[in-house]
């Protein structure tokens, strides 16, 4: 799936602009960004809820607006605004079974039974955790190639969260399906995703392969004699934290040469810390204003 130059405006305000990325089959991609950065807008635009102001979305090089039948490969349930509350799980099953031609009814029933969800239950009466679990079951049973999951772990307790993640990983590992997951729970996301898309300033600013990041980037804790941050550090890193003279910084392209140059500055402390997705998020988005929407 390719997202090219996608722009969406609301009431003359640009929410996302010139968004470009592609999703390959079989990968799990995280979409990370601050509140109001346009993650949900991007999902809704891909799913067809919102009309595009510019750009195109295609699957197998065919545009979704011209070949809407390709949308059967997409699964998305809006987190906030959906119709599920009005129905029982049995009725919802009917809807999704009809909507997705490859819906795996046996798998659906099996998952429902194994997680103790009776079909007669009303969606409205379920706890938030159970609703999240149920939406994941629907997503998996839909057999859609591209799963768009907006905050799937939001509000789930640790037990349900582990169940949901387990379910997702098990399903995706067995098939050639792709998941694009927006989540604030970066600790969880880090262990699931292959790639992270960083949405900032209304567009995708970074596309990181976690493996490459682990190879190329470093998180260092440094203490220098002077309170001033040396220009070399400013030039090559993104500051995560500064407490007195203690700096914690993320170096995107960390090389042996750079390490040697830093050592030449004679730091009092030079320590490598474990790099997490949260660091990446913090280093890149620390300066971005919190936007509503």
């Amino acid at each position, binding site marked *: 799936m390719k997202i090219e130059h996608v722009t969406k405006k609301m*009431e003359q305000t640009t929410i996302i602009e010139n968004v470009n990325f592609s999703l390959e089959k079989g990968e799990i991609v995280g979409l990370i960004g601050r509140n109001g950065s346009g993650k949900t807008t991007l999902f809704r635009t891909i*799913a*067809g*809820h*919102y009309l595009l102001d510019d750009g195109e979305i295609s699957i197998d090089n065919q545009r979704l607006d011209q070949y809407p039948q390709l*949308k059967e490969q997409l699964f*998305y349930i*809006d987190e906030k605004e959906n*119709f599920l509350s009005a129905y029982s799980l049995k009725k919802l099953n009917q809807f999704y079974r009809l909507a997705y*031609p490859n819906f795996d009814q046996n798998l659906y029933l099996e998952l429902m039974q194994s997680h103790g969800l009776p079909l007669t239950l009303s969606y409205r009466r379920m706890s938030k955790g159970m609703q999240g679990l149920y939406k994941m079951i629907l997503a998996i049973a839909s057999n859609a190639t591209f799963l768009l999951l907006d905050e799937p772990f939001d509000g789930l307790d640790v037990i349900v969260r582990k169940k949901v993640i387990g379910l997702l990983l098990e399903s995706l590992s067995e098939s050639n399906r792709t998941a694009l997951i927006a989540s604030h729970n970066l600790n969880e996301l880090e262990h699931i995703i292959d790639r992270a898309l960083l949405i900032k300033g209304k567009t995708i600013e970074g596309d990181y392969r976690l493996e490459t990041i682990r190879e190329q980037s470093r998180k260092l804790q440094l203490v220098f004699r002077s309170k001033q941050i040396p220009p070399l550090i400013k030039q090559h890193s993104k500051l995560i934290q500064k407490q007195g003279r203690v700096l914690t910084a993320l170096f995107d392209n960390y090389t042996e040469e750079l390490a040697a140059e830093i050592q030449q500055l004679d730091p009092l402390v030079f320590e490598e810390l474990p790099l997490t997705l949260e660091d990446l998020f913090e280093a890149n988005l620390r300066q971005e204003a919190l936007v509503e929407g």
Partner: protein
Amino acid sequence: MLSNLFKERYGKLLIGFCFVVLFMYISAGWQSQKAWHQQERYLASEEFIKDFNENREYYVKSYNGETPVYFDSTAEYRDAALTINKEYSDEIYYNHPYMTTMNQFVIVFLFLIGFLSFFVDGRTHFNRFLFALPFSRKQVFGKKLLFIGLPLTACLVLGLLGHILIEYAMIPARYLAVPLQDVLLSALSTLATNLLVFATGLLLGVLLGNLFTGVLSVFFTISLGSMGYSFFQCTREFFSFVFLGHGDFLLPFQTWIDWPQGYVYPWWLLLLYLGLSGLLILAAEKVFSKISLENDGDYLTIPKLRAPVYWLLSLGTWFYLSMISYYPLEIFYRDLYEGYDVSLWNIALRLGLLLVACLFISLLLVYPKALMNWWYKRKNKQVSNI
């Protein structure tokens, strides 16, 4: 797939609606023949014969100038009273078994079904599910329209035919003065009116998005629509005054037929109404295709239509309310009736105030967000100046 989804979503409700439509026509037909038979029994009773003989002066057949002409016998009166014509005679007074208020219920019901069939899916977020399906908006609209429209139209046809069948089967033929062909054509005219009303409701259901102001507008439309006859009469009289210099021009044909009483639209008007229904449905489809769901809670689901809808709503409502309140006609009544002492300034002032009210209320309906933003900006400015 779509038809099955719609079956899951609306199936039972649609069956219910169809039964209501059938029930309204069939029950009205049954009530009509029942009323006729009650009338027949009464006109054959001793009580009636006694009353007729004792109070002959009440049983007026017609007027010869100022002089009343009375019925000669109970049989003559009975025949006149029980005969079903398509309209009241100016000269003969009798009970009309076709009289019903059910036509108003059918019209309001169809308008509401048209409106709700699209409005509810917007408000309950079912459109979010539909828009994510592997179909174009055009396909979703078309399938939904067929799913709801076809059975409903079939029930309207069945209901109309059933209504006619009950009356023509249960009332002796010699009392039915309207030819069956006319009644069937009248049913066709009624169907055209019904479809026009349904299509109007449907367009509003697609176009309006706000739960409060959208529903308010629909009730407003129904309330104003119930005064449609006054509006039509006043408008006809007004333009008759303007173009002919007198107010008594009558159209030689019916412009609104909502019950199969025997009235028939001229063929061109029938085609016009059917064409208008088609255009409204086409407009609804175009609007549906352009809906982007970030606007689904706004008064209008398509922001680009705000300006044209605002002007149409405000000026249209102003014209409608002006007409049903007779304000423009008073300009001509001043010359027509002695002692009609109203100045032109007075009329202009009332029309002007009504226009301002319509412009203001329409502004509140169509541009609530813009007004709120303006209000907050103004308030913030005041606070920052302190």
